[in-house]
């Protein structure tokens, strides 16, 4: 069976007024039906990775190097019809702000049906019934009526369900979810997470779930990849990451979650702020904020250590630990 | 044959019910075309000033015993466009329409236009079917001139249309050579010949006469040059070369119009000094002004145009003579060290005003040569009319010592009497300058009491001679009523009058 996703040495740069080295040598692989959480702070390149996968970045201002294949399809070579078929058909996406990602002047039924018609070439009536079916599957109450609602007539949680219904309507092999629950209440968030989990099993698709909340990652994913400054600094199963995070950044994030920090105790905060990506990093980007940093860290890019199969850490210390 | 389309300067089709509005243009196009008056102007000749001729009245006379009693014999066999006969009853009915507010047919709109034209009339009555008697308030030999204003509309038509002038306006009926066929307010009026017109020589040759209001001079010029009209009134001087270049014909002729400064004669006005008045009249190079007006002007030699039958032989020769003018000024006590300051009312535009601003600036420069410094008070035309009514002594004129006005000067009253009559001193009348002179008053009285036309003309000449010899106005120029015609228009004779005859015209 082909791998669902294989990203190799993806380097992505925005040019224009300011140059942004958004992704630097990112490699990522997923097997069919896996759920991967992409974890990282704001600006670390999570959304860019997803958009690159769908070819949604402004072509003129984006320079991409490397390789991306999804289900054996070379994404970077796609264009025209093939690209349209791939988008939404093979890979689809759920956005962070459903209020902005849905067209305000079309009913949600129309918006789902439109996508179905395009990919499945079915009649409008058939597409509408698919849409209805999808709304049912994402547990929208009285879906029949909701079909004819406009996005603004729904609550945030409902909109996100619609977004999911829309993304899944054409049975993609890979679902990209860009912080789909950040804007939602905790009670609604957990509903959506469970729904996604369920649908993922049912449809057997792969999911990349972007978040900056470790708790959410734990709830949704089997595997976690941690991003920092356009690089993947650590990857492993969720359990590995939670139980034995190797990278100081991942450790910092775990601590900052405050899950079982004693009340009033001093927090082990990561000092400082993430680097600007105006220059291509030639040393460990996290070193300036790292409590363990030493001279070696600034000498060059940290080595990728593989402590276990499909587990990796990009840190000098991890290497040392592994060596010890 | 053919249709003649005329671009008028008026903004609207003149009032169609009889007594017209829109000034001279109204009478010209909607008055003497659709209607007749008892006494009319002879419009057949271009060479001589037009005179009064019988219209609907064939004959008139004043009772030698009682000089207030006039008898008018009406023309026989005249019918209105609606077929009803014209008779004495009609005349009385028409006069009531203007003068008797209680009468059924009283029409305030026509009255506003006509009433003031016949101030002399005291009463009138039917003598027989074709004879009318009119009694004046006092002996007034100018009555025929006054009656030439009054147009006769059909009583039968008015009755047929429910006695509603509103209805009559849409389907008027007169005795004139043209019948109004259709009429769109502010856009166009179409007239066709009246085949049964009493004067066969004046039955129109054209099939149709179309009037189109085009108040904007350039719109008129463009309309003529793009072939949308065949005739425009008052082409802008600067467009004339272009029109002539394109084969259009410019027609013009002297007519009773003048462009003057009406001088203030109230206490303290410098114009009370005849030397200053004469000097000013001599300081202006009227020929030099011609290029500005495209040559379309007659330099003033007096108050009336030189060709007028009433011009006479004044001694004072109005011409350009700077030396004499300076001498007169010196005599009056002015000189390079002692300038005379005067304030003059002018308006930037106005009916018949020609090109008031440049012309006045020209005067200003000319008068500066003889040490008269003119300060202008520029007011809007309607405001100017108000100031003109108010008179030179009114505070609202702010001490202005002259007003630049253009006058319709067709008959004894409008031409001479109204400007200087002691009884008409503003605001009671139109004697703006408060001039009052027993000698002049005597002349006016003689005009009114001289019933023989030839003798009356002589008195008129005498009066005008006094106008000129006393240099009572700053007399500048006369308009020549220019109009531009398509070369297709044939047979038009431009009379020396405000009114014109369209019957002789044909289209090629």
């Amino acid at each position, binding site marked *: 069976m082909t791998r669902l996703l294989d990203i190799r040495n993806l380097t992505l740069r925005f040019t224009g007024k300011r140059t942004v080295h958004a992704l630097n040598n990112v490699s990522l692989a997923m097997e069919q039906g896996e759920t991967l959480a992409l974890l990282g702070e704001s600006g670390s390149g999570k959304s860019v990775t997803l958009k690159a996968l769908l070819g949604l970045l402004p072509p003129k201002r984006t320079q991409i190097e490397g390789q991306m294949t999804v289900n054996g399809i070379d994404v970077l070579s796609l264009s025209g019809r093939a690209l349209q078929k791939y988008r939404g058909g093979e890979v689809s996406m759920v956005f962070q702000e459903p209020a902005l990602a849905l067209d305000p002047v079309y009913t949600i039924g129309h918006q789902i049906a439109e996508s179905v018609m395009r990919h499945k070439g079915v009649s409008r009536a058939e597409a509408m019934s698919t849409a209805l079916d999808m709304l049912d599957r994402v547990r929208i109450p009285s879906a029949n009526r909701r079909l004819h609602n406009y996005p603004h007539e729904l609550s945030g949680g409902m909109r996100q369900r619609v977004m999911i219904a829309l993304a899944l309507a054409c049975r993609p092999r890979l679902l990209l979810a860009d912080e789909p629950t950040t804007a939602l209440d905790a009670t609604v968030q957990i509903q959506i997470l469970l729904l996604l989990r369920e649908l993922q099993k049912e449809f057997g698709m792969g999911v990349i779930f972007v978040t900056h909340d470790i*708790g959410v990652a734990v*709830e949704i994913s089997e595997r976690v990849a941690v991003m920092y400054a356009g690089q993947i600094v650590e990857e492993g199963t969720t359990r590995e990451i939670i139980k034995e995070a190797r990278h100081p950044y991942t450790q910092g994030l775990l601590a900052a979650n405050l899950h079982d920090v004693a009340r*009033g105790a001093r927090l082990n905060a990561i000092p400082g702020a993430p680097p600007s990506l105006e220059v291509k990093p030639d040393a460990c980007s996290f070193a300036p904020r790292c409590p363990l940093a030493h001279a070696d860290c600034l000498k060059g890019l940290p080595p990728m250590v593989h402590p276990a199969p499909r587990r990796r850490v990009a840190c000098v210390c991890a290497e040392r630990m592994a060596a010890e | 044959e053919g249709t003649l389309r005329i671009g008028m300067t008026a903004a609207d089709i003149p009032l169609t019910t009889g007594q017209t509005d829109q000034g001279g243009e109204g009478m010209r196009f909607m008055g003497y075309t659709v209607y007749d008056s008892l006494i009319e102007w002879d419009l057949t000749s271009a060479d001589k000033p037009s005179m009064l001729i019988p219209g609907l009245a064939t004959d008139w006379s004043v009772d030698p015993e009682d000089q207030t009693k006039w008898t008018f014999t009406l023309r026989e066999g005249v019918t209105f466009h609606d077929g009803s006969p014209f008779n004495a009853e009609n005349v009385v009915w028409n006069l009531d329409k203007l003068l008797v507010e209680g009468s059924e047919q009283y029409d305030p709109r026509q009255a506003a236009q006509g009433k003031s034209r016949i101030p002399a009339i005291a009463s009138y009555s039917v003598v027989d079917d074709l004879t009318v008697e009119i009694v004046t308030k006092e002996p007034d030999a100018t009555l025929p001139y006054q009656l030439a204003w009054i147009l006769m509309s059909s009583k039968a038509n008015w009755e047929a249309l429910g006695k509603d002038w509103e209805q009559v306006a849409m389907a008027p009926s007169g005795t004139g050579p043209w019948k109004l066929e259709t009429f769109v307010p502010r856009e166009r009026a179409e007239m066709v010949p009246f085949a049964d017109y009493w004067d066969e020589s004046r039955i129109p040759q054209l099939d149709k006469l179309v009037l189109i209001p085009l108040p904007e001079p350039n719109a008129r010029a463009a309309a003529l040059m793009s072939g949308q009209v065949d005739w425009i009134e008052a082409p802008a001087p600067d467009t004339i070369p272009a029109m002539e270049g394109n084969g259009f014909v410019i027609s013009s002729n002297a007519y009773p119009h003048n462009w003057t400064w009406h001088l203030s004669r109230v206490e303290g006005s410098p114009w009370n000094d005849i030397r200053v008045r004469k000097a000013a009249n001599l300081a202006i190079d009227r020929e030099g002004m011609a290029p500005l007006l495209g040559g379309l002007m007659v330099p003033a030699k007096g108050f009336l145009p030189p060709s007028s039958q009433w011009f006479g032989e004044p001694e004072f020769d109005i011409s350009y003579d700077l030396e004499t003018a300076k001498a007169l000024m010196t005599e009056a006590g002015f000189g390079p060290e002692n300038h005379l300051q005067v304030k003059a009312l002018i308006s930037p535009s106005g009916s018949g005003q020609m090109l008031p601003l440049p012309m006045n600036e020209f005067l200003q420069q000319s008068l500066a040569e003889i040490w008269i410094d003119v300060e202008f008070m520029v007011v809007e035309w309607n405001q100017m009319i108000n100031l003109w009514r108010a008179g030179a002594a009114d505070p609202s004129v702010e001490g202005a010592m002259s007003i630049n006005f253009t006058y319709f000067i067709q008959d004894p009253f409008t031409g001479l009497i109204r400007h200087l009559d002691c009884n008409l001193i503003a605001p009671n009348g139109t004697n703006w300058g408060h001039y009052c002179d027993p000698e002049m008053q005597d002349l006016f009285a003689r005009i009114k009491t001289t019933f023989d036309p030839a003798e009356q003309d002589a008195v008129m000449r005498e009066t005008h001679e006094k106008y000129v010899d006393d240099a009572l106005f700053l007399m500048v120029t006369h308009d020549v009523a220019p109009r531009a015609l398509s070369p297709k228009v044939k047979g038009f004779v431009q009379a020396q009058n405000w009114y014109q005859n369209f019957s002789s015209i044909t289209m090629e």
Partner: protein
Amino acid sequence: MSVTESFAQTPDKGGPAQPLVIVRDLQKHFPIRGGILGRTTAHVQAVDGVSFSVRKGETLGIVGESGCGKSTTARLLIGLIEKDKGEIIFDGQALGESLSLRDLRRDVQMVFQDSYASLNPRLTILDSVAFGARVQGLDEPEDRARSLMARVGLDPDRFAHRYPHELSGGQRQRVNIARALAMSPRLVVLDEAVSALDKSVEAQVLNLLTDLRREYGLTYIFISHDLNVVRYISDRILVMYLGEVVEVAPVDSIWQQQAHPYTRSLFSAMPSMDPDNRTKVPPLAGDPPNPINPPSGCRFHTRCRYAEAVCKSAAPRLGALPGAPDHLTACHLHDAASGHSRAGMGIPA
């Protein structure tokens, strides 16, 4: 001049036993205009009869779903919107009686969620921080502002003359905190002050807040929807639902026992942080009801699995749990006299 010296709060009037703030029966209904004539056709019952008190030096955490009235409560508390009803007593003085709004505002300050929107984009950081002190006529507002900036970890020489858009989110939130402190307040209301920050930065700011509280003897009202954060920083937690208080209790007490079904659901909605023991069923279905027409009786009854007829008809009153006078809740399950079939028995385990 050190910061602490210049940090001259108004003196304590009521003594340590007098709660710093007492709120009684606070109510705010926002009118909704509609209909043909644009009349008021309905009210958003944003805050409906909220009562609580905050002791001097403690931190009260307020949690609840979006739209439950947390921010409205905060804004009422510092008089940014006018209350419809209720009483606010600050250090023994009732607002509007012995205490003027202007005086209250010296003692109470607020930090908002949106760090960008809460800074005037046209003012430099220094001007923003110094503004309040200038308005209140405090001495040397600029020096004060500079030392406060230094205190919240922003080098005044580097940041004083920058504009908000030249700062990161965490830095801006520090500025907001400095601005609030510039007035030497006694109570600081933090409305989701850390929610928009990245986790790593959030921890920095929380550390700062803890330090400042100790240093200046501040009292906090800390609004958040992140229970972990609230637990970390608060002494007591107040849970709101649709404009009403459903539970108030000391942190440890509520962490052990969530007396109200809603509180329990809210706690169960927290991610588990244990990959082997993930949440199985969502603790609560659907979205909160519309605050324009809130359900009758107990407002939670439409989503409560223990709801009975009485919950629909009668509104429960806030009362202490047996044996825990500090732990108040408004639920028929805990009110022996409510008439609920499980009255007085609490939530089944």
